[in-house]
């Protein structure tokens, strides 16, 4: 495959044709924040945290789905991007009830980490305090919609890796919720295989293993990429 040479933040980088800016940046140790991206499943460009500036382009581009182009000049860390990323993270914290102190994922949460990354010491927007349900009808797992950021990683991993499509999104806008089957309690879902991949995929404390208490919900997200790689290499 042809190589592409371009710069990220002034650093000269060579990448394979068809590679995304995000992949190329990570290969070279350049950090770009992400949330809806998950190695092993398709990218949707929805969280907008990986937006980067590309010289000559008026629009900001999501690094996770934008392929590299020869001689492109990418900037990942400008004042504008930093401010926008912080605002996006603040919007998420204000949108639902993310109370780190009493969350199973405290200390192992991608949203919490993002807040640190973007320098969020407080949220300037008003919190909305919506009423959200907690579903612990499944014998092994639970879902707390208070913590859900609608990244759809569970939807994609269930569809693309497990191949079941138990999860989808119902409703729209701020009313959107991830659902199982006909929005019945998870435990009553006919299609769920209880494989637990959605638990691995979830970036926050939304989908968790039952029995985990505050701060205990750790997971190995590399497993998803491992499963995908292992499967791709088989006959």
């Amino acid at each position: 495959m042809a190589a592409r040479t371009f710069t990220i933040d002034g650093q000269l980088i060579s990448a394979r044709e068809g590679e995304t800016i995000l992949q190329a940046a990570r290969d070279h140790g350049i950090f770009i924040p992400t949330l809806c991206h998950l190695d092993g499943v398709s990218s949707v460009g929805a969280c907008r945290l990986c937006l980067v500036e590309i010289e000559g382009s008026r629009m900001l581009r999501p690094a996770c789905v934008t392929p590299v182009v020869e001689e492109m000049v990418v900037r990942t860390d400008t004042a504008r991007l930093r401010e926008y990323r912080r605002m996006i993270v603040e919007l998420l914290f204000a949108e639902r009830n993310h109370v780190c102190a009493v969350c199973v994922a405290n200390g192992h949460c991608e949203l919490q980490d993002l807040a640190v990354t973007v320098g969020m010491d407080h949220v300037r927007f008003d919190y909305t305090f919506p009423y959200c349900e907690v579903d612990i009808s499944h014998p092994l797992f639970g879902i707390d919609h208070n913590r859900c950021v609608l990244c759809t990683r569970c939807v994609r991993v269930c569809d693309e890796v497990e191949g079941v499509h138990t999860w989808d999104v119902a409703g729209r806008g701020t009313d959107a919720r991830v659902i199982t089957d006909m929005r019945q309690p998870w435990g009553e879902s006919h299609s769920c295989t209880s494989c637990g991949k959605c638990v691995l995929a979830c970036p926050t404390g939304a989908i968790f293993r039952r029995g985990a208490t505050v701060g205990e919900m750790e997971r190995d997200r590399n497993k998803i990429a491992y499963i995908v790689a292992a499967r791709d290499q088989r006959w």
Partner: protein
Amino acid sequence: MTVTRFQPPAPDRTLHPSGDNRFKLLEATMKKHQYRPDALIEVLHRAQELFGYLSTDLLLFIANSLHLPPSRVYGVATFYHFFSLAPKGEHSCVVCLGTACYVRGAAAILAAAEQTLGIKAGHTTPDGRLSLETARCLGACGIAPTVVFDGTVTGHQTPDQVQVWLERLKGEGLKVAG
């Protein structure tokens, strides 16, 4: 390689083979579209037309027929405003809240309608007789503000017209609680 998607076992399909003719009509629509998954929205339109609303069982029936995961069908049905997962009233009053209607006082009409009917927009009276809804724009802006009474678009409306409509329905024998 063709992949056949795992289909979860359907719950009791007690209502389908019951001889309800509407299912046959729905089947005909799906057949016309060769049971293609991309016809889902067309099929949902037809189902709502036949049944008045989309019940969980009906959605499951469609999911199974089109070989789609239930959550996907549910996700689509709840994405679009046009689809209703709950029964609607026998009579309906739809107040257009498009810009042209808004500028010409649609908000006052809606407020009057809510007061007259005693329900909030998007709801049905407890007796199931009347539904009050809002629309984003009917494209009848030239005759704004507009209200749709039982499917008939009427223009140049005023807040008291809802009362007039209700009186007419009562005159036609409709019993409305309260």
